[in-house]
């Protein structure tokens, strides 16, 4: 069953409308015969209300008014607790989960939230409960973290850190009391004014016990990612466009190929030309002048958007989809469904 689950990963820079687009896609896909779940990350209040999401939970709840649609909001610390329980021995798990270094890493390590998202996605795929899963990804530089997180997490735990502290062979806990005899560590301890390094090393040894199981898990997660359909959402603003370009440059490292780039907040291409033509059908001169001036500004934006998008599509040969700019971002179920109406090429992806 899980092999039949269709997975859409929606990625892109922060602030481009990923979560809204994810929800709208899931609404299109859901139906009585297609159980669909959208996994959101930090949805805006009004969108969360529309999806009836009121607290962080990896457990999907049904979306009122949409047959066959469920939604969840990523709870990264619950995902990590699950990871620790599944991939380490019980007594180590208890030690790790109460260790304040573990909390600090889980809170700050940039890939930690992304890894939680990949793990939660994989669990959903493997549950066999879903026909389709739409995954909104945590904000990060261009969305790459979501794809790099499995290997980065394994690297962190497999321990370049630990390797340096303890040497090539993985020692037992007894080793700790010997290695702190190394002069450098004594100096570091003096500077830091406490037995900090010893604490850290003890913690890293616990973390290291998860390595083999977590490395195998990461490989599975990467397979799920490669099998998914990846859609990159952007706006035409210079900063997100630069991030999309960087995303494509670096993606080859993880052998993921996006199936499409979706330009959100797109302006009609015709506005650029229309702005050059005289307006004849507005009798009031003031109104005509104001609207002409306004169209000239927006027409210039439309032209700028078009050239930014040609840069992406021309260079990487991906299908380009455009979602029109609407004044008020859609937050009710009906508006969300309409948002993607008439978006050419979309249904080929979904």
């Amino acid at each position, binding site marked *: 069953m899980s092999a039949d689950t269709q997975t859409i990963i929606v990625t892109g820079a922060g*602030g481009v409308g990923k979560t809204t687009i994810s929800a709208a896609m899931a609404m299109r896909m859901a139906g009585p015969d297609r159980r669909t779940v959208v996994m959101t990350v930090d949805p805006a209040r009004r969108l969360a209300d529309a999806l009836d999401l009121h607290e962080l939970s990896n457990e999907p709840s049904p979306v009122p008014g949409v047959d066959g649609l469920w939604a969840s909001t990523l709870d990264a610390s619950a995902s990590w607790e699950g990871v620790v329980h599944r991939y380490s021995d019980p007594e180590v798990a208890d030690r790790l989960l109460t260790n304040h270094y573990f909390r600090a890493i889980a809170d700050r390590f940039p890939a930690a939230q992304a890894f939680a998202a990949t793990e939660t996605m994989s669990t959903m795929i493997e549950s066999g409960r879903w026909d389709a899963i739409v995954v909104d990804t945590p*904000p990060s530089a261009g969305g790459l973290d979501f794809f790099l997180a499995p290997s980065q997490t394994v690297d962190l735990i497999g321990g370049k*850190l630990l390797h340096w502290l303890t040497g090539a062979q993985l020692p037992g806990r007894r080793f700790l009391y010997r290695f702190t005899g190394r002069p*450098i560590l004594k100096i570091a301890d003096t500077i830091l*004014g406490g037995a*900090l390094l010893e604490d850290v090393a003890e913690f890293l040894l616990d973390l290291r016990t998860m390595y083999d199981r977590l490395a195998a898990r990461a490989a599975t997660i990467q397979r799920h990612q490669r099998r998914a359909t990846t859609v990159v959402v952007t706006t035409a603003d210079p*900063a997100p466009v630069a991030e999309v370009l960087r995303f494509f440059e670096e993606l080859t490292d993880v052998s993921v190929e996006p199936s499409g780039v979706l330009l959100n907040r797109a302006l009609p291409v015709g506005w650029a030309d229309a702005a050059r033509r005289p*307006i004849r059908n507005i009798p009031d001169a003031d109104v005509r002048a104001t609207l002409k001036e306004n169209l000239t*500004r927006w027409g210039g934006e439309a032209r700028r958007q078009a050239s930014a998008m040609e840069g992406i599509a021309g260079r990487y040969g991906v299908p380009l989809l455009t979602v029109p700019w609407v*004044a008020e971002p859609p937050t009710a179920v009906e508006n969300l469904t309409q948002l993607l109406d008439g978006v050419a090429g979309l249904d080929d992806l979904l």
Partner: protein
Amino acid sequence: MLDRRLLFVSGKGGVGKSAVAAALGIVAARRGKRVLAISMTDRAGLAAHLGVPKLTYDPLQVRPGLYAAVVDRSRALDEYLGLQLHVVRSLPTRQLSNALSVLADTAPGIREIVTMGKPIFEVWREEWDLVIVDAPALGQLQSYLAAPQTITGLVPTGAVQEQAARLESTLSDPSTSGLLLVTIPEELAVLETREAIVHIDSHRQIVIAGVIANRVLEPLGIATATVAAVPDGPPRAAGLLHAGLVEAQSTWLNSIPDDPRLPFLFGFHTPGEVAERLAELCEEFV
């Protein structure tokens, strides 16, 4: 705003904080100040807005009076150890900084304090009239601001602890340091900014120097009903889009402090052009 020695610029990702940081650097340099603009992240944003391909750890002059740099973590760690902790010369610093980079990736506060230490060291160095920091986005900023206190709690004595206390006092001195928040009039950005204001005001790690709303649209000057009444076509559609966006923005503008506003810039292609134009606009209020 530019009277302090150290100005952090932050905001939700994508609101234009690098552009504003670059613009303020340009303005301050034009007024004859010796300015260092420094990025705390490795992102290309500040470089692009200053019109240079990339930044380095060593300050690079980008125009008269304006220098730019980026915090490189391992160089910052070396500097932190060598300069600030007065580590004895005979020590194998490389090994020691290896030990500490292990810590920096694990123990809370160390990476942050090393990264944040750099701009503050530059202030102590007395070489600059103003250090403008393109700081991490709001989501990460708070763990940086809290770093000195985190360290103090973690290591009760020693050179690192003394260092942390000194950083904390520079940061929290309102005549030396300030934080400028950049936002845009949209739901997520405004709500995140408001939460940050409450959090920062209650933790008193740094004083908020201002809240700038960026990408604010000017009203059309004619009633929306008038626009709706003209015949269908691009002039009407563009007019209605503009009017609708202005209305949506006004809701969010009303719920942030009434500080300076920067307009939505039409027709700008490169980050360098954007920063130049913003600098002209900033002249009026800084």
